[in-house]
C-alpha cells in the first residue's frame, strides 16, 4: 500500500520531470509563434499568434525537399537495419557456432566506438567508391550503426525466449527461417517495434553524417535545412524555431502511434528478466 504522502511525492516528482521535458518544446512553440521581427526568446507569451511563421519557414528552409530526403533515408535505414538486426540477433541468440563470441564482440565495437571518430575516414572511403553526395552515402553507414545496436537488442530478446519453444518447432519439422518467422517473430513484435522506433529516431535526427555526405541541397535532409536559418551575422530565431518543430513532428507522430508497444518493449527485458 502506498500512503497518501508517498502518492503526493510520486506525483510531484513526475510533474517536475514532465515539466522539465516539456519546457523546451513549449519554449520552442512560443518562439515559433511570435512576430518574425520581435527580439528575445523564451517563455513570453506573444501578443498575437503568427501561424504564418510555419509557412514562411517551410519555404525558407525548403522543407519539402528536406523532409522527402529524410523520409527516404529513414525508411531505408529502418528497413535494412530491422531485417539485418533480426537475422543477426537470431543467429547470435539461438545458435552456437565456432567464433560466435568473436562475431558478437565485433558487433559491440560498432556500439562502443564514438561515431565522430570514424566520420573522416568514412568520408574518404565512401568517396573512393563514389557513394558520397547521394542517399546511399548516408543510408549505408546509418544502417550499419543501427545494426550494431539492433543485433545486440534482438540477441538479448532471443536469448530470453524459452529454448523449448525452438526445440518444439524443430521437432515439428520447421526450418530455422520458419521458426523465426512463424514462431518467434509474432512473439517478438514489441521488441522489434521498439527497435524500429529507436532506429527511426536516430536516423531522422542525424546531423553530422548528412552534413558530411550530402553537400547537394537537393538531397539534404530536414535537420540540415535548419542551418539555412542561420546566417553569418544574423539568425532567424523565429524561423529556426518553426523549422525545428516541423523537423521534430514526424518523430513525435511515429512515437505517439507506437508508444504502447515501445513501452512494452522497453519493459520486457526489465520485468520478465
Amino acid at each position: 500500500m502506498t500512503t497518501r504522502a508517498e502518492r503526493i511525492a510520486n506525483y510531484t516528482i513526475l510533474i517536475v520531470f514532465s515539466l522539465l521535458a516539456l519546457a523546451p518544446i513549449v519554449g520552442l512553440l512560443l518562439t515559433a509563434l511570435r512576430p518574425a521581427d520581435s527580439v528575445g526568446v523564451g517563455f513570453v507569451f506573444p501578443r498575437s499568434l503568427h501561424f504564418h511563421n510555419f509557412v514562411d519557414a517551410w519555404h525558407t528552409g525548403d522543407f519539402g525537399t528536406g523532409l522527402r530526403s529524410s523520409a527516404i533515408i529513414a525508411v531505408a535505414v529502418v528497413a535494412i537495419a530491422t531485417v539485418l538486426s533480426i537475422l543477426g540477433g537470431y543467429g547470435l541468440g539461438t545458435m552456437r557456432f565456432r567464433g560466435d563470441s568473436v562475431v558478437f564482440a565485433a558487433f559491440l565495437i560498432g556500439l562502443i566506438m564514438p561515431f565522430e571518430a570514424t566520420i573522416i575516414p568514412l568520408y574518404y572511403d565512401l568517396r573512393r567508391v563514389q557513394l558520397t553526395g547521394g542517399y546511399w552515402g548516408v543510408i549505408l553507414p546509418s544502417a550499419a550503426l543501427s545494426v550494431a545496436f539492433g543485433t545486440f537488442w534482438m540477441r538479448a530478446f532471443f536469448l530470453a525466449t524459452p529454448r523449448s519453444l525452438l526445440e518444439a518447432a524443430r521437432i515439428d519439422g520447421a526450418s530455422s527461417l520458419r521458426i523465426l518467422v512463424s514462431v518467434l517473430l509474432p512473439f517478438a513484435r514489441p521488441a522489434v517495434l521498439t527497435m524500429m522506433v529507436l532506429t527511426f529516431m536516430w536516423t531522422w535526427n542525424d546531423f553530422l553524417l548528412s552534413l558530411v555526405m550530402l553537400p547537394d541541397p537537393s538531397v539534404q535532409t530536414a535537420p540540415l535545412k535548419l542551418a539555412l536559418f542561420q546566417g553569418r551575422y544574423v539568425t532567424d530565431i523565429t524561423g529556426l524555431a518553426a523549422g525545428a518543430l516541423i523537423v521534430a513532428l514526424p518523430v513525435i507522430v511515429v512515437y505517439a502511434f507506437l508508444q504502447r508497444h515501445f513501452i512494452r518493449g522497453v519493459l520486457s527485458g526489465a520485468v520478465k528478466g
Partner: protein
Amino acid sequence: MADVRWDGAEKRYGDVRALDDLRLEAADGEFLVLVGPSGSGKTTALRLVAGLEALTGGHVWIGGRQVDRLPPRQRGIAMVFQDYALYPQMSVEKNLAFGLRIAGVPRGEIRERIGTTAEMLGLADLLGRKPRELSGGQRQRVALGRALVRGAGVLLMDEPLSNLDAQLRAQTRIEIKRLHEQAPTTTVYVTHDQVEAMTMGDRVAVMQGGKLQQVADPATIYDDPANVFVASFIGTPAMALNRLGAAWGDGGAELGANGFTLRVPAAPEALPADVTVGLRPEHCRLWRDGDGLLGPFEGRVESFEALGRESFIGVEVADGVRLVVAAEGTMRSRLGELVRFGIVPGRLHLFSAESGLALGRA
C-alpha cells in the same frame, strides 16, 4: 512404429560425462520409463534420441536406422516438453496443425486428424483458444495432442506431468497409460517421480550419474534391485540399508553389528564379511504372534509417520542400525518407546558393501 536403441551412447560436456556408454533398447510399441534423480542423464538420453543434442560417442538407432546425424524432423519422433512449449501466439488448432502443415499434409486430412486427436483428448471445445487462456492441465493435453497428432513412430516425453498438481497428475498418468494401450506407440518417458515410473512403464530404466543402473519391469526393479542405488531410490519410504558383518554359523548365516544379530536360514553362498542389508518397511512388521516372521527384535522408536491406511515407525535396533517398521492403520507411538517387530524371511536384500551390487536375498 519403431524401436529405439542407444548403442554405447555417450554425451560429454567438456570433462563432464552427462551420459556414459548407455546401452538400452525400447522395443516397438513399448513404454520405457527413464527414471533417476536430477543429473542422472535421463533427459540427456532422451534429447539424444530427439536430435536436440549431438552424440559425443556411440550411436542412436530408431526403427533400425542409425540417426546420429539426422536432424529432429527426419527422425520420425514427436516430443512433449516439461513446460509444454506451446506456440504462444497460435490457437490450439494451429498449434496442433503446425507440424502437419510443414510436413505438407493436405488440408482436409489435417482437419480430420486434429478432429480425432481433439476428440480423444477432450480438446474439441478449446480449439479456438490461445495457450494463455488455458489451465495447466489443458495446456498439458494440448502438448500431448500436438505430439500425438503427428502420428510419429516414437513418442518422447520429458517430465510431462511435473507442472501439474498432485490430483491432476494422477489422473493424467492414467490417461496417458490408457492412450498408450489403445495405440501402442514406442514411448520413452523421462521422470524423476518413481510413482510414475512404477505405474506407467512396461519397463523401467533407473539411471544415476550418467549411467544405467538397472533396466527391468517395475516388479523386478522393486523386488530385486540390482544395486544399493536402485534399492534406495525406488520405494517410499525408502528401503532401510545397514552395513552389517556376515558369517556362516550353525543352521544359517548370521548378520549383525553392534550387538544386533539376525540369523537367516538361507543366504547367498558367496557371502563376503561385510554386506549392506536392505529391508523394505512392509517386510518389517510389528510382532503379534510370530506369523512365520523372523524375530522378535526390539527397537527404540526414533520417528513415526501415520498416513491413515498405514503407519511407518523408524526404529533403532542397535547403535547405528536403523529399520522402518510398517503397521496397519493409524499407529501412535511415543518417541523412545521400545517396540517389538519381526522380519519376513527371504526379504532381506543383500548387497556387497564394497561394490554395492546385489548378492541376492536372504
